């Protein structure tokens, strides 16, 4: 809407050449006035040069044609089906007829994407069992009758909206055509009005297309109440999963500390005690024991570092996701290729989640997959809203599943906890591909929505 028309000069550039210093004072008022007029004109006629209104008009025009096709096909199919109900053949046609209606309305739903709106399907009752049960559940499903109702309603709504969208254009064209045909009797006021309308027409087209998609969404899109209830359910499940993942994580850390570091520290203590006992009687043996203690100490410190890094990778803060991911695979016994291709920085939370996904996934591969080679890719998935896609692939034995309490369940919980999506494809025998898509919250709007408030 606010796109600058191509003929508007870039701001700050001045017409005329040279001697600006001397003339600027005289021109200031006039130029400022000129510039604001130019600005106003740019604002008013700007939409005319944007693509949106062309697409919107096209969307509405196709809508009229499609509404007609849908109606005719539906009417014929319904008439045939219900006309033949009493000779049993009609009963067989019920399911295909409603499926046809569903397919056609779903095309209309998907068309809303032309003007940037995504309309998700309103779920129909699932059809299971024999053809008789399928037929019964189809014919008694209010959602399917709602789709049929849409076909009828859209036959009226689509042309009306199209008419609203084209009316300003028709007026403009008629006025211009008349002025061209009859140069003598040009009504200046009429012409001026037509020019003004040139700014209005694209706005009306875009707004009308918006109305049309809103109508489609209301009719064919999910019921907001049901959607909300589902969302609440999902959130509750996710919360439980996160809590479980956190508990599992704590157990893992506790075990790592107790079974790893603590044992090593005690072993060091034993070595030192034995060294102390030999200090005077057998200094050489004591020195050897102290050396052994020092080696164990090195390993304990190393283990502490691993545990600490598992909690939060310092390199993530210092050098970014790419470096952090490289440091995960650096210690891997098998080759793991890392490819990070992002157009911009990630917020800390998203980077930490991405790091966690890769860290757990690669740990899982090393533990279970028996793979020869693996790869990690992090790329942009979509813009507006921005999402990134993490793909971790290995050629191991497959059969991985996100069972409760497993590392993969931890990944799922973490990813779904930030409203991302997670899927794993791991047939027995491999290969395994894990894909996580993470939304990237805009930095400015992230704060009020976050759980920290």
């Amino acid at each position, binding site marked *: 809407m606010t796109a600058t028309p191509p003929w508007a000069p870039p701001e700050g550039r001045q017409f005329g050449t040279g001697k600006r210093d001397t003339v600027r004072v005289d021109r200031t008022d006039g130029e400022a006035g000129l510039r604001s007029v130019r600005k106003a004109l740019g604002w008013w006629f700007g939409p005319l040069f944007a693509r949106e209104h062309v697409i919107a008009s096209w969307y509405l025009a196709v809508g009229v044609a499609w509404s007609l096709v849908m109606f005719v096909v539906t009417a014929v199919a319904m008439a045939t089906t219900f006309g033949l109900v009493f000779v049993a053949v009609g009963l067989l046609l019920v399911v295909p007829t409603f499926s046809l209606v569903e397919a056609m309305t779903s095309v209309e739903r998907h068309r809303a994407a032309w003007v940037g709106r995504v309309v998700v399907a309103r779920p129909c009752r699932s059809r299971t069992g024999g053809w008789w049960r399928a037929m019964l559940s189809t014919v008694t499903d209010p959602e399917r009758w709602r789709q049929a109702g849409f076909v009828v309603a859209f036959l009226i709504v689509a042309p009306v909206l199209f008419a609203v969208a084209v009316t300003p254009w028709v007026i403009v064209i008629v006025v211009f055509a008349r002025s061209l045909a009859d140069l003598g009797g040009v009504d200046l006021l009429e012409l001026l009005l037509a020019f003004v309308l040139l700014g209005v027409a694209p706005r009306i087209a875009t707004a009308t297309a918006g109305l049309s998609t809103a109508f489609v969404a209301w009719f064919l899109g999910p019921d907001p109440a049901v959607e909300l209830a589902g969302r609440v359910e999902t959130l509750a499940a996710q919360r439980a999963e996160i809590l479980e993942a956190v508990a599992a994580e704590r157990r893992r850390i506790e075990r790592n500390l107790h079974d790893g570091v603590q044992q090593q520290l*005690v072993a060091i*203590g034993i070595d030192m005690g034995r060294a*102390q006992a030999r200090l005077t009687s057998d200094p050489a043996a004591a020195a050897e024991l102290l050396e052994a203690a020092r080696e164990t100490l090195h390993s304990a410190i190393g283990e502490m570092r691993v545990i600490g890094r598992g909690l939060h990778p310092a390199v993530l803060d210092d050098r970014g996701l790419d470096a952090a991911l490289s440091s995960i695979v650096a210690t891997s016994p098998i080759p793991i290729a890392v490819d990070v291709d992002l157009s911009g920085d990630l917020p800390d939370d998203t980077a930490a989640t991405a790091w966690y996904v890769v860290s757990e996934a690669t740990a899982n591969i090393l533990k279970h997959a028996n793979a020869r080679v693996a790869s990690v890719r992090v790329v942009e998935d979509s813009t507006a809203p921005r999402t990134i896609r993490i793909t971790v692939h290995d050629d191991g034995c497959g059969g991985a599943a996100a069972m409760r309490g497993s590392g993969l369940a931890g990944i799922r919980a973490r990813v779904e906890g930030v409203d991302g999506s997670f899927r794993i494809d791991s047939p027995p025998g491999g290969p395994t591909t894990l894909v996580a898509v993470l939304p990237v919250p805009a930095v400015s709007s992230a704060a009020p929505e976050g759980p920290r408030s």
Partner: protein
Amino acid sequence: MIGDAGGIRAVIADDSVLLRDGVVRLLEDAGIDVVAAVGDADSLLRSVAETSPDIALVDVRMPPTHTDEGIRAAVEIRRAHPGVAVLVLSQYVEERYAAELLGGETAGVGYLLKDRVVDTEDFIAAVRRVAAGGNAVDAEVVSQIIGRSARASELDRLTPRELEVLGLMAQGLSNGGIADRLVVSLGAVEKHISNLFTKLDLDHEQSAHRRVLAVLTYLAARP
């Protein structure tokens, strides 16, 4: 079963090879004969049955579940081989089984936190003491089970007779057994026990648990 200083035979069970090797060498330095060193509870029970050691040193957490295999094995050893002393080494206190282990006959039973191994001389002394039929109960263990630290001063409040009764309780004697040993009536023993519970601040505990706690206090305060 009661070995003199030179002739103690020990079995050790710990799944951490590092720690197990360290303890084995530590015991061998002290002249204790380690007849078997194993990594899980089943092997422990088998080697105890085969070698009839004087003492078994048992880690609480062992495969497969890494929870309380060791202490369950320790309880089992006490049941099947009463002559084998048991010293449990733990990263932390497993209250339920600790109480079970220390609730019966306490001769030759020890429960120490693993950290104590670091004080090598004290640790060896504890091994010798338990192998000889004595006790080694970590004050930390007692305080975690009782919820407060066991203090010798608490025992000072007891009369000599009550102390004697408590000592017999720690040997696993029933009230009737204590009455026989001291040649007093059962009622008198019960009165002594009730008094010493009060003095040890155990009035509010359940009766069965209370007995274990009193014994624990006794064991912890007099190593």
